[in-house]
C-alpha cells in the first residue's frame, strides 16, 4: 500500500449550531485521485476547506505528511487549491496570475519564467501569457487556475467542484485532461463534486458522504457494483432499491418471488434491501421471466431505452437497447451476480451514519 499523506482524525465542525461534520476519519494516500462525493450540504466542501486551511475544525486533527497542521494558516500549507469559479486575479494578466505564488516565495525571475512556460504547456494554453483572465473562456480560465496552483509544486492539489460552471462537452474533455495532469504530475488530487459520473470517471478512490458522515469508501467499481447501503446505491447512478427477505444463503425473496443470488452470511429470513441496476434487469417474454409485469412508461435516451415496468407491485426501472412498447406484457429476469444485497438500516439515523465497521 502507498504511503499515507493526509490523515483526518475525528474531525467535527458545526456552523451556527448545525453539525456539518461529525467525527470524520479519512486517510489519503500519496499519488491518489480521491473524490469526495455527495449531495450539497453533505460536508464535502467543508472537509476540503479544512484541509486547505480556510476552515478550522471544532474538534479533531489534520495530519499532513506526519505533521499536525490543524492550526496552520493556508499560506503555510504545502497544498494548493483550485477554487469553484476559478477565482483568478482579474487585475493581473495570465503570466502574473501564474507567477503569483512564486513571486511571494521570492523565486528568481528566470525560474519563474520557465515555470510559467511549463505550466501553460501542461494545460495546453501556450502563448497566453499576456492575455487578461476576463478575455478567456470558462474552460481556459479553469486551466489557468490549475496552472497557477501546480507551479508551486504542491504535494496535494485540492479541487473544489472545478468543472461545475462548464458545459457538458467541456466538462467531459476536462475530466480526461485532469486524469492526464494527475498522471504527469504524480501528485495527490482531492476532488470535490456532487456529480457521480465525474467521480466514477476520474477517481482511484471515491468517498461517498451524506449529512456529515462517510457512507462508503471504495474504488469506483466497488461503489457502483457493491453499494453498502441504500443511500450510496441511490446516489450513484439509477437503481431499483427493493424490500426483500434473505431466505437463506444465495436465495432471496424479492416481492414474493424467489431469486438466486451470490451473497451469503445474512442469516435466514432476514429482511434486507436489494439493489438491482436498471441495465441489469433483463426483459423477456412473460413465460421466460421470474416475475411478470406490464411496461408502463417508455423514453428513448439515445444510448438505450428507459422503461418502467409494473411488476409485483413495484415500478422497476429498466435500461435496455431493446424496445418494448407501453402496455406490453413482459417477464423480468435478473442474473444472480447482479443482485446486490444490503443490510436494512435499523433506523433513519443509521442510514445517515452509514455502516459501522
Amino acid at each position: 500500500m502507498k504511503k499515507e499523506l493526509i490523515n483526518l482524525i475525528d474531525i467535527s465542525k458545526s456552523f451556527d449550531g448545525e453539525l456539518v461534520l461529525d467525527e470524520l476519519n479519512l486517510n489519503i494516500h500519496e499519488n491518489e485521485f480521491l473524490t469526495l462525493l455527495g449531495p450539497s450540504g453533505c460536508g464535502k466542501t467543508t472537509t476540503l476547506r479544512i484541509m486547505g486551511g480556510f476552515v478550522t475544525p471544532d474538534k479533531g486533527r489534520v495530519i499532513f505528511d506526519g505533521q499536525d497542521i490543524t492550526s496552520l494558516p493556508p499560506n503555510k500549507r504545502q497544498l494548493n487549491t483550485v477554487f469553484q469559479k476559478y477565482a483568478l486575479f482579474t487585475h493581473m494578466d495570465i503570466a502574473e496570475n501564474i507567477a503569483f505564488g512564486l513571486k511571494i516565495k521570492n523565486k528568481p525571475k528566470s525560474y519563474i519564467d520557465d515555470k510559467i512556460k511549463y505550466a501553460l504547456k501542461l494545460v495546453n494554453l501556450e502563448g497566453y501569457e499576456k492575455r487578461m483572465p476576463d478575455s478567456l473562456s470558462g474552460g481556459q480560465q479553469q486551466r489557468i487556475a490549475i496552472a497557477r496552483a501546480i507551479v508551486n509544486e504542491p504535494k496535494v492539489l485540492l479541487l473544489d467542484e472545478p468543472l461545475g460552471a462548464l458545459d457538458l462537452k467541456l466538462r467531459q474533455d476536462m475530466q480526461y485532461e485532469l486524469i492526464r495532469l494527475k498522471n504527469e504530475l504524480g501528485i495527490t488530487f482531492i476532488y470535490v463534486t456532487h456529480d457521480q459520473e465525474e467521480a466514477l470517471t476520474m477517481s482511484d478512490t471515491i468517498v461517498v458522504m451524506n449529512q456529515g458522515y462517510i457512507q462508503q469508501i471504495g474504488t469506483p467499481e466497488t461503489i457502483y457494483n457493491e453499494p453498502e447501503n441504500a443511500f450510496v446505491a441511490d446516489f450513484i447512478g439509477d437503481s431499483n432499491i427493493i424490500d426483500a427477505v434473505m431466505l437463506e444463503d444465495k436465495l432471496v425473496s424479492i416481492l414474493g418471488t424467489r431469486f438466486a443470488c451470490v451473497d451469503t452470511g445474512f442469516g435466514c429470513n432476514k429482511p434486507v434491501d436489494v439493489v438491482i441496476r436498471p441495465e441489469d434487469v433483463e426483459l423477456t417474454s412473460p413465460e421466460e421471466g421470474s416475475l411478470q409485469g406490464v411496461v408502463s412508461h417508455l423514453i428513448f435516451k439515445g444510448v438505450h431505452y428507459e422503461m418502467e415496468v409494473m411488476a409485483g407491485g413495484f415500478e422497476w426501472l429498466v435500461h435496455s437497447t431493446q424496445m418494448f412498447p407501453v402496455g406490453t406484457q413482459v417477464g423480468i429476469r435478473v442474473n444472480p451476480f447482479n443482485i446486490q444485497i444490503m443490510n436494512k438500516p435499523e433506523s433513519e439515523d443509521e442510514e445517515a451514519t452509514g455502516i459501522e465497521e
Partner: protein
Amino acid sequence: MKNNKITGRLLSAPYLLWETVFILIPLGMVFYFGLTDRTGAFTLENVLAMMSAEHAKALWLSIGLSLASTLICFLLAYPLSMILAHMNVNQHSFIVLIFILPMWMNFLLRTLAWQTLLEKNGVINHILEFLHMPSLNIINTPAAIILGMVYNFLPFMVLPVYNSLVKIDPNVVNAARDLGANELQTFIKITFPLTLPGVISGITMVFVPALTTFVISKLLGGSKILLIGNVIEEEFTQAGNWHLGSGLSIVLMIFIIFNMVISAIFDKNGEGNML
C-alpha cells in the same frame, strides 16, 4: 416598429425638455457670459482672470483643502468599508442606517449645526469648559472647513469603496492566501488593487463637490477665508459681474472634467454609479 420609435421619443420628451432648460441653456449662458465682456464682444479676459493673484490664491486654497479632506475621507472610509464588508447583514444594515440617517437632513442645516457646535460659545466649548479642558478654537479656520467637507462628503467615499469591496469573490482572497501570501501581502497585491476603481470614484465624488463648495466655507470659514466657490458666488450675487463669474466657472469646469475623465478611465465597472 415605427410606432415604438415615436412612443420612445414622446416618452423621453420630458427628460429632454428638462435637460435643455436646466442644463444646456444655463451651460450655454455660462460660456456666453464667460467669453464676452459687458459690450458683448468676445474676450478671454474673464477666463484668464483666474491667474490674478487673489483668484489664484483662492483656487490653490480650494485645491489644497479639497485634497486634504479627500485624503481624510479616504483614510476614514477604507477601514470603515472593510469593517462593513465583513459584517453580517443585520449588523451592517444598522451601521449603514446610522451612517445614511444624517444625509436625509438638509445639507445647509447640517452645516449650520456644525457652526453652532464649533462656535466660541458653542456646545462643544461648553462641554470642554465643564470638563475643565482647553477650549477648541477652530471655527473660521481652514480646519473647520475641512471638518465640514469630510463630514458632508464622507458617505460619497464609503459607498463606492464598500461596493467594490463586497464585489470581490471571497475565494479570490482565499486563493492568494492559498498561494502563500500572508494577510498584508494579500491586501496589498489583491484586495486594494481590486478596489481601486471604487477608490477613484470615491475620490472624484469627494474632491469635485469639495472643490466647488461655497456654503461650507461661508458657514464654517467666516468671511475671511475665500475659496474659489466663494469668489465666483460673490461675483454673481454681490459684484454683479456675471462675465467674470462665468469666466472663472469655466476654468473650474475644466478641472472637474479632467477629474471625471480620470475617474471614468479607472472605473469601468461603474462602482460610483450607485449614487
